[in-house]
C-alpha cells in the first residue's frame, strides 16, 4: 500500500506535490505515473481566478491511501466520483463507499482532512472542482431560501461545509458525455471546462430545489433506493419492471417506495427509467451505426413509432430529424 499525502486548491501549485508524492511526472497539467502504480489520465487546470478542476480517468494497479491535507483553506472541493471497484472514504472512522451507486458527490471544506482508500484494480473516473469559498457563498446567497438552507449546508458550529450526496441524472450524463472526447483532442479542454460549469449549475439547482436533506433519510432507505436505481439501469434494455416488483425487491411498501424514490432522485421510478433509456438510445443514434428500428428494438420499445413518440416528447423532435440535423 502506497500512502500519498497531498492537498488541493484553486491555485495549481499542489499538482507538483501530488506528482512527486505519486512518484510521477508533471507536464502541462498532466501527471504521468509509473504503470505499476496506475494507468490513465490525471489532469488539472485552472478555469478562472476562483475555479479549477482536476480530472481523473485511471485504472489503479496498486492500493493507494490518499491523505488529503490541504494547505490552502480558502476553497471548497466538490468531488464527482464514478469509481468502479473498491474505494472508500473514511470520515470520523465511518466508511462511506464511493462510486456510481454509492455516495458519488462529496462537498468538503478545505479545512477538513480526508482519507481515501483505493484498491488495486479499481477504475476511477472523477472530476473534482475547487471553488473559492467567497465565490461559492456569493452564488449560494442568491438562493431565495438561503437562510433556511444554511443550517443544512454548513456545519454551523465549525462554519464548515461537508456533505455526501448522490449525483443527479443530469450530472451523470454530463460526465459520460465528456468521455466521448478523448484527452489530447483539441476540444478536450473546451468540453472539460463546459462540463465543470454544467456540473456547478446542476449542483446549485439541486441545492435550490432540494425538498429534503438526504442525511435525514435513514441510511437503509437510501441504500434501498440506490440499489433499485442500479437495477433499473441494468434493466434498461428491457421493459419497466413495475412498481410492485421494484418495491418488494427492496422490502418497501409501494407507497413508501414511490415517495422515497421521488424524494431521493427527484423523479418517479418510471421517469428515471425512461430518461436513462432515451439518453442511452440517443447515444446509440449518435454513433451513426444503427437504424431507428434497431435502436427501438434494443431498448424494448413496443415498436419504432412508440420510440419515436417518446423521443419526440422528450427532445422536441423525432429521431430521424435528430439524425438529419446532426
Amino acid at each position: 500500500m502506497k500512502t500519498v499525502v497531498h492537498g488541493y486548491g484553486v491555485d495549481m501549485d499542489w499538482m507538483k506535490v501530488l506528482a512527486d508524492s505519486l512518484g510521477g511526472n508533471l507536464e502541462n497539467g498532466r501527471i504521468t505515473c509509473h504503470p505499476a502504480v496506475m494507468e490513465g489520465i490525471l489532469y488539472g487546470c485552472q478555469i478562472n481566478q476562483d475555479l479549477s478542476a482536476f480530472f481523473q480517468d485511471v485504472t489503479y494497479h496498486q492500493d493507494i491511501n490518499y491523505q488529503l491535507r490541504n494547505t490552502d483553506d480558502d476553497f471548497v472541493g466538490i468531488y464527482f466520483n464514478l469509481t468502479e471497484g473498491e474505494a472508500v472514504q473514511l470520515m470520523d472512522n465511518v466508511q462511506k463507499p464511493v462510486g456510481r451507486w454509492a455516495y458519488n458527490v462529496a462537498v468538503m471544506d478545505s479545512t477538513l482532512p480526508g482519507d481515501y482508500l483505493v484498491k488495486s484494480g479499481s477504475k476511477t473516473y472523477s472530476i473534482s472542482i475547487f471553488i473559492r469559498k467567497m465565490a461559492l457563498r456569493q452564488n449560494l446567497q442568491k438562493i431565495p431560501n438561503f437562510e433556511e438552507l444554511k443550517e443544512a449546508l454548513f456545519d454551523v458550529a465549525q462554519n464548515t461545509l461537508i456533505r455526501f450526496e448522490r449525483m443527479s441524472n443530469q450530472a451523470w450524463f454530463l460526465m459520460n458525455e465528456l468521455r466521448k472526447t478523448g484527452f489530447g483532442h483539441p476540444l478536450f479542454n473546451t468540453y472539460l471546462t463546459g462540463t465543470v460549469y454544467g456540473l456547478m449549475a446542476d449542483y446549485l439547482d439541486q441545492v435550490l430545489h432540494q425538498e429534503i436533506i438526504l442525511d435525514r433519510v435513514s441510511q437503509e432507505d437510501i441504500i434501498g433506493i440506490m440499489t433499485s436505481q442500479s437495477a433499473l439501469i441494468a434493466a434498461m434494455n428491457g421493459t419497466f419492471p413495475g412498481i410492485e416488483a421494484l418495491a418488494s425487491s427492496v422490502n418497501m411498501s409501494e407507497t413508501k417506495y414511490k415517495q422515497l424514490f421521488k424524494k431521493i432522485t427527484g423523479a418517479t421510478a418510471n421517469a428515471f427509467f425512461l430518461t436513462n433509456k432515451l439518453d442511452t438510445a440517443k447515444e446509440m443514434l449518435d454513433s451513426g451505426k444503427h437504424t431507428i428500428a434497431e435502436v427501438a428494438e434494443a431498448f424494448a420499445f413496443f415498436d419504432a413509432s412508440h420510440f419515436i413518440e417518446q423521443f419526440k416528447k422528450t427532445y422536441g423532435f423525432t429521431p430521424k430529424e435528430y439524425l438529419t440535423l446532426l
Partner: protein
Amino acid sequence: MELTRKEFLYHYTLTPEWLQKISQNLGAALIDGKMMRMPQQLADGAAVFLEVMPGLSVFLLDMHFHKPIAITRVPKSGLYMAYYDLGEEITTHLLNGTPHKAGYSSKLGMAFMDSGIPGSILPPVGARSYSLRLLIAKDLLHQLAAQNHTPKVHEALFDESKNTLYFYSHIDSRSKILLNRLKDKNVEDPSFEFHLKYTALFLLGYLVERASRFDPIINKLSEQEILAIKASADELMNGLLSEFPSIQTLANTAGMSVSKYKLLFKKLLKDSPKQFFLKEKLLLGKELLESGHFESVSQVAYELGYSKPGYFAEVFKKTFGINPGTLIQSP
C-alpha cells in the same frame, strides 16, 4: 405596417466594453457589467453578456420589444461570431382564417461569420426574441479546429487572404437541445451564469465538430457575393410553394456565372440549391401538417405543389421517419 427602425451602432469586443457603449446609447441599465435591461417603453426582458474563457464570450438576448429598433454591427475584424436564433423558424400567416400562399416565410436559425462582415439585429416587435451569440477569438477557433481537416486544408481555411469562413443554416440537433434547455432557465436563477457558460462551451464544441463534416470550399467572398447568395436562399425559402427555379435563373438574379453560383451556394448553405429547396419544402410541409389548418395529407401536398400526394408522403416518411398523416391535427 411600415416599420421605421431607430438605429443603434456597435461592434463587438470580447470584453463588456461594447455592451457599456450600446447600453448608454439605448438608455439601458447595465447591471454588474453583465446584464442589460432596456427602458420599459422599449423592451421587457434581459440580455446577458459573459466572458466564458480567454477567447470566448457569450451574449444572450431574451427580450420582448415594444418598439422597432435596429442594432447594427459596424464591421470590425478580429473575431468570429456564431449566431443562434430560437424564434419561430417558419411563420404561417393567416388571411381570413386560411393560410395564405404569400404568408409563408421561413428562416434559418444559425449563422457563422467573421465580425468583419456587417450585420443587423432587427428584433420583431410584439414577440419574444431569443437569440444567443458566441464571440470567438480567431486564434482560439484556429486552434480548436486543428484536427478537422488535413493541416494543409486547415491552414487554407483560416488564411483570410484565400478564404472567408461563413455559413448560414438550421441549428443542429445537439445545439438545439442545449438551447431549448437554456430557454427554460430563468436569468435570475443563482445557477444561470453557470448554465450559460456551460451552454456556450458546448455550442462552441458542437460548432467545431459540425464544421469538420463540411466539404472545405476555399474561396474568398466579397460582401456583395454573401448578400447575393443569402438573398437567393431567402428567395428560395419564400417561394417554397412554387416550382424550383432553374439554376440559370437563380445565377442570373445573383449576378454570377452558374458554376460560381453553385459553388458559393454550397459554401454558404452546405447543400446544393436544389437539395436546399427540397429540404426546406419538406420542413414547411411538416409545419403545415402540425399547424392544424389542414385536414389531410393531400391538402398539404397540393399546397406545396406536389401533384402526387403519395409521392410527398413517401419522401416525407423517408426524411422524418414518420407518416405525415400522424401529424395532422383536427382544426
